[in-house]
């Protein structure tokens, strides 16, 4: 990993460790305070533990033009970005992180082109609903590998992360802590529950916290909907299209709506946020990621509404194009933050329990 980001983050973290005023905002500062010297793995861990709430920037008496030039959110964002790139698999594809927006648009165009071509050139002679545009087996042939391969890539990248930060064996108790923290997004709570400083200078607001959770919940519901569909198809021989009161729809429609609202909101907040507190080169890719997620959910909902209409002919490949782009980009986009964040929370739970067991001796 290029060491200038690490060196800069280390310089700032050493000052924070002497100051500690931000200790109450998030989990990062208490973790910093367990050390005196910082190995590269420690800094990578802090970077992925940081939820980018930006509280510590606005509270800092040493921001530029002060000569200490503290900007912890930016320093950690740049380590974070680099760590994803360094841990990506296959390693050469990790370079995509530097050109994330371009990568997104290229993958998008290619996916759309392929899907439009398939739905017209390879349109099956028979089939019901969506399957009258593309046969079920063709869909499976495309989407299963393009879902599984990225998952494998993410798995390898998270393993690499876990090694880099010195993680040990995982206990249930750590999982419980990490999931609890994730569910409450307590690292975006500001420590007082009033939220983070993202879209309006030093004003605390829970907007980003709620919108993120809407996105996460929407995503999980959509994922569950797909799983339930698969189960119905293979387990019970019930084929799509499913009616409004079917399990896949009951999960998928609210999921899609939440995902739409969440991602639209996050994209809007992102346009309000101070770019000086993030990595400039990452902005486009992060925005592209949010918009692709938005596009996936929005086209999914429209497609559902248009069931039986001639427009499905265009809507289906459009939606599938978004889905395919999203899947393929999982390991090389902002989406990895979720996996790394979970790993960082697990590692933090482990570190805190090591610390308290040390103290009780």
């Amino acid at each position, binding site marked *: 990993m290029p060491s200038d980001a690490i060196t800069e983050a280390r310089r700032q973290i*050493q*000052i924070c*460790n*002497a*100051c*500690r*005023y*931000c*200790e*109450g*905002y998030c989990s990062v500062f*208490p973790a910093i*305070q367990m050390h*005196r010297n910082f190995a590269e793995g420690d800094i990578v861990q802090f970077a992925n533990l940081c939820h980018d709430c930006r*509280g*510590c920037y*606005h*509270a*800092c*008496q*040493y*921001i530029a*033009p*002060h*000569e*200490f030039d503290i900007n912890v959110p930016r320093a950690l964002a740049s380590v974070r970005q680099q760590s994803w790139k360094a841990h990506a698999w296959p390693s050469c594809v990790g370079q995509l992180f530097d050109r994330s927006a371009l990568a997104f648009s290229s993958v998008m165009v290619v996916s759309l082109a392929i899907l439009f071509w398939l739905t017209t050139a390879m349109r099956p002679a028979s089939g019901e609903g969506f399957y009258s545009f593309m046969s079920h087996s063709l869909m499976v042939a495309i989407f299963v590998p393009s879902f599984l391969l990225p998952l494998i890539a993410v798995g390898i990248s998270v393993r690499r992360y876990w090694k880099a930060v010195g993680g040990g064996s995982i206990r249930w108790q750590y999982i419980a802590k990490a999931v609890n923290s994730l569910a409450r997004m307590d690292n975006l709570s*500001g*420590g*007082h529950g*009033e939220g983070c400083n993202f879209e309006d200078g*030093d*004003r605390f607001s829970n907007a980003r916290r709620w919108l993120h959770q809407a996105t996460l919940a929407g995503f999980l519901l959509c994922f569950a909907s797909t799983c339930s569909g698969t189960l119905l198809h293979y387990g019970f021989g019930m084929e799509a299209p499913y009616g409004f009161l079917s399990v896949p729809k009951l999960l998928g429609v609210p999921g899609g709506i939440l995902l739409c609202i969440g991602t639209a909101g996050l994209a809007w907040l992102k346009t309000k946020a101070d770019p000086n507190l993030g990595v400039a080169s990452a902005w486009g890719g992060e925005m592209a990621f949010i918009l692709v997620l938005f596009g996936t959910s929005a086209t999914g909902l429209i497609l559902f509404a248009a069931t039986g209409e001639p427009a499905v002919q265009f809507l289906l490949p459009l939606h599938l194009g978004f889905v395919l782009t999203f899947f393929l980009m999982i390991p090389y986009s902002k989406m990895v933050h979720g996996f790394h964040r979970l790993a960082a929370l697990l590692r933090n739970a482990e570190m805190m329990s090591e610390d308290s067991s040390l103290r009780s001796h």
Partner: protein
Amino acid sequence: MPGSGSNKALDVLVIGSGNAALTAAISAREIGAEVLVLEAAPEVYRGGNTRHTRNFRCMHAGPTGVLPGEYGENEYFGDLQRVTKGNTDEALARLTIRSSEECYGWMQDHGIRFQPPLSGTLSLSRTNAFFLGGGRALVNAYCRTAANLGVQFVYGALVRHLELKDRRILRVDAEIEGETKSFFPRSVVAASGGFQANIDWMVDAWGPAARNFLVRGSPYNRGIVLRNLIDQGVDTVGDPAQCHAVAIDGRAPKFDGGIVTRLDCIPFSIVVNKHGVRFHDEGEDLWPKRYAIWGRLVAAQPDQIGFAIFDSRSIELFMPSAYPPVEAKSVEVLAMRLGLSKEALVATVEEFNNTCRPGTFRPTELDGLATEKLNPPKSNWARPISNPPFFGYELRPGVTFTYLGLCVSASAQVRAKGSPIENLWAAGEIMAGSILGEGYLAGFGMTIGTVFGRIAGCEAAAHAL
């Protein structure tokens, strides 16, 4: 600009945007006054020394928010008596202490959030309430509250002159974007801090040694308002030649180094001057009780510089500071890296090591591990400096605040020749000398600012309306 020129009404003009100024501005506005805040610094540096604070000392009859147990008026006053050696105005001090209790709720109502004590500050957990995010978070919260209430702010507005005539401030002149603008407020609150960043003034008071002092807080606290008022005959209090100074890392910036440049290594070190010679007992008492004497001790040494020397056994015993210590495999090389005479430092370390006695080293209490026949002695934690690597820090005096200030009444009103100026109030560091004649009690600066800021704001508004 509101209140500038004579065209628009301005009830209360507040000078400064630190804790005292903001509590005054909010209090005045809540009563209904039109309030304008003039701050010399640009917006990013608003909040003066308040940006560097982390807690305030709060009386409480029982568990209150993050504060456990109780901290009563008499215990609080006793603590103040001890640190000031009785150099305090009892009536004002008791007023401050009593009022501190209701500050907690008031601060919360105006956006301040508290947290349990920061790690490494357990000794203050019962007496001091810590601000979540520290002083700059507090300044941000107050500024938002004030702005939402309709208080106007002008940054980069340096107040140069208050026209005092017949016991009234008739006009306030400020330099804004290179031009002098005049304001004609009905009431004025001076909350512009001390003069420690005014090096020339410090030199007048201290002598040329003051050029080598570092200032821990804002470069904008230059005492311009204080000087202007003194020149027009207002009453002052406090010794102009006194300031609160601690020994900080010599590599710290000239201004605004704040909390991260402090060094807590002295009890586990020996401290030498630039000739490599020790000059004071490093183990006299527990560190929190001796923290504040080392600024003056170092200031009295040639070139106002000192060096703390310790070895690898002590490196983990104190809070880390912003800069890593200078490190070397031998005392000779350490001397060289610190710019000290090799022979002198080696001789001092050897002499010290030879006078250390066997015994149990207990870093968190007075362990009585004293040197034998060493002058000056080291009365506790005297353990040979012999385990490489060796470490050293350069020490300089870092000034926290000055004591000379405006003499105020219990209603925060400023006086000239014993009688009040009708429309001038003062709060915070600029009048803290009225209560704190010498010494310092952790967290008391913010308490004085909050109590008198609120009083000054209310009085100023009542006068204007």
